[in-house]
């Protein structure tokens, strides 16, 4: 049993406390935008925001974040998220798309903390998100594009 605020709604999850947040979001809440890729925090496909910070939901037991605030791709809001998602669409970043929720999460988190990231900042913030289609060239460009939009 764990109480969380997920995308602004308070929820009580009737699952064992060691249940990874990933499976609670997907199986219990049907928030399927958050993806399973590895289960061991190696690929970043399951990235969500917990208390405002990007977190790998596949290794985050719901009991460990009791009372926490969770934000998933389904409810990404604010200027940074909007700029990132627009940039992603404008230059057609996604290929297969499976990793992209996690990529958008990490990119949004980066821009919330750093409005003008360098290539090195992008490498550091995004290196934990694997894209098997290797859309990395466009991820980098889209983050720069989003940063430019935010700077107006």
């Amino acid at each position, binding site marked *: 049993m764990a109480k969380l605020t997920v995308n602004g709604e308070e929820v009580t999850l009737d699952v064992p406390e060691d249940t990874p947040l990933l499976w609670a979001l997907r199986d219990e809440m049907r928030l399927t935008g958050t993806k399973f890729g590895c289960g061991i925090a190696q690929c970043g496909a399951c990235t969500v925001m917990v208390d405002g910070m990007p977190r790998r939901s596949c290794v985050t037991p719901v009991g460990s974040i009791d009372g926490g605030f969770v934000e998933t791709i389904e409810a990404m809001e604010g200027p940074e998220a909007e700029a990132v998602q627009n940039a992603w669409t404008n230059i057609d970043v996604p290929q*297969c798309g499976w990793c992209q929720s996690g990529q958008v999460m990490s990119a949004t988190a980066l821009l919330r903390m750093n409005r003008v990231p360098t290539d090195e900042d992008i490498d550091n913030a995004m290196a*934990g998100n694997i894209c098997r289609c290797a859309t990395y060239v466009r991820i980098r460009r889209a983050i720069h594009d989003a940063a430019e939009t935010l700077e107006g």
Partner: protein
Amino acid sequence: MTVQNRRQFLASSAGLVIGVALPLKGRAQSGAAAALGDGTIAEGAFAPNAFIRIAPDNTVTVLCKHIEFGQGPYTGLATLVAEELDADWSQMRVESAPANDELYKNLAFGLQGTGGSTAMANSFMQMRQAGAAARTMLVSAAADRWGVDPSTVSVEKGVVSDGSNSATFGELADAAAEARVPVEPAVKNPSEFTLIGTDVPKVDSQAKSNGTAMFTMDVYRDGMETVVTRRPSVIGATVASYDDSAALEVPGVTAVRQIPQGIAVYATSTYAALKGREALRVEWDMSNAETRSSDEIFADFREMANSQGTVVEETGDSAGAIEGAETVLEATFEFPFLAHAPMEPLDAVIEVTDGAAEVWMGAQFPTADKGVITQTLGLNPEDVTMNVMLAGGSFGRRAQPTAHIGAEIAEIAKAAGGNGSWKLVWTREDDLTGAYYRPITVHKMRGGIDAEGNIVGWEDRVVNQSITAGTPFDQGGADPTSFEGSTKMPYDLPNVTVDWVKADMPVPVLWWRSVGHTHTAYATEVFLDELLEAAGKDPVQGRLDLIKDEAGRDRGVLERVAELAGWDGQRVKGDRAYGVAVHESFSSYVAQIVEVSDQGGMPKVHKVWCAIDCGVAVNPNVIRAQIEGGVGYGLGTALFNALELGEGGEVRQKNFDTYRMLRISEMPDVEVAIIESEMDPTGVGEPGTPPIAPAVANAWRALKGESPRRLPFKQAGV
């Protein structure tokens, strides 16, 4: 333009529903027969309108016969239809076509399927004719309604007009449904194209940026159980006995059942299923297992490479020429097993209701899966509905001639019995240890150079398993997917022998992005580069001097990439080195030049220049994306990846911590030039991959004196 889900579509699909109203047998049949054979499309020889639905709400839905897993067929095939229909791009929708070989076969295969980078090539004329046919029917309906001659009616951006009257497609949909189906719809001249050749926005980008795109794993049915299967950790092992008492104690686990694929754990949630599987105790029967390690297999293959295999290409007398050569070079190249590792692991959902089944999966050969599901469950084909879902990558992994995922989900339903719904989930560990790898391969090369520096003899012996043996793709005789690319080189070499030694072992193997070219491009382009170096020749000019007259497209991309990279013959500048490779695969021609430095004993690739000739560039943006991705896929693999069998045959790499993926910080800048062409379009999903590894290895040799004899660059450790 957006991707529609099936429910939305069904809710709005009244009106002109061309195709699904056709009896599946009957009208489509003559076309099905005539389109087989040499793969060209006979006029009037198919059911063009099986691909298009025009609704009263003025949306045009294209039923895409190819699975979308990132390579762009949803956008590409819809572009072809919209072009000939003169539709407005915003009114276009894309749906996955149902499983039906007669209507939706790949014209290159004769059955429904995606692979071999054929989606655009086999659809180019078919989808244009489908669009042109629908346009003719709309024009005819408008002309009837307005009492004018059809020749006075024009169509532009989805509006049908004769100058004084106008109507949308939606307004004409019902009437058009009554119009005669044209037998030979005329298609546009390329000079009339308004969409083909432009960067039409991809239909799936938005849904894949906001989490709404629906994949197989995202399907949830009422009362559905999740199932994970314990498979052997040594390939080919089978269950001897098992103890499920602890597994059944796990809250949420509802049942444990043995199926041919292993021991299936059924649960009310994914986590419960995974915990239940961990609690299983299984004894394995190793009698049919592959218990050799990769090192032992390599040693066996090297031994096999000492005996001649089946000669698959021969010109002149290579042995004699090499014997008489001034300089002889020899090299043995070794390539490991590789896993495809698509980001969405394999999965499937089935719902059985009173003798009917509905299935959701990223099926690359949907009729093959449907067939095995129908057979396993003892159902009638018309009672099995396949939903081909968006898939989170494939790279060949979902192209399963054995339909093993279809079989597994069917066995899960069969073992449970009765009505219900079940979701099969493979974990990453299942994915990496579950075989169906790119085959281990050894190339033994010999080459001779005369006193003037001419290559006088070339031998390439390939040792590996056959991918197609025992599948419907088996053509008998030598399997071209084992050595494609070693044969039909673009170079004019006087004495050539290519032979293939077929290895048999119980490890299932599968096509992996670019198939045989994954290793043949490396072996041929590295070895050729070494011969040119030994002869004192420039890697670019040396190749150009050798390229056959008829290989003009190879020459074209090589000249273009040299221009793009500013090639000046200097292989090393400061701490940077440059390497080149050119390779044709799937009838597309790709040349790459790379800039590399040494970063702690590993290549750091800074820049890749690439030229591709893939005929008409239907969507240059998608082509560039596929090249970027193909480069990244091939580069990460060349640098890091080997799927190794350890001692006793146990798979060593079980997840991304040891099967290391390329990351953003390792991705080079990629600059792509697309050759202008009026040739029919060819594939772009795979051809970007083969040249990157040899180009990097050639640059690395310029820097360090040697190109790796065994890939990956980093010998994987656990």
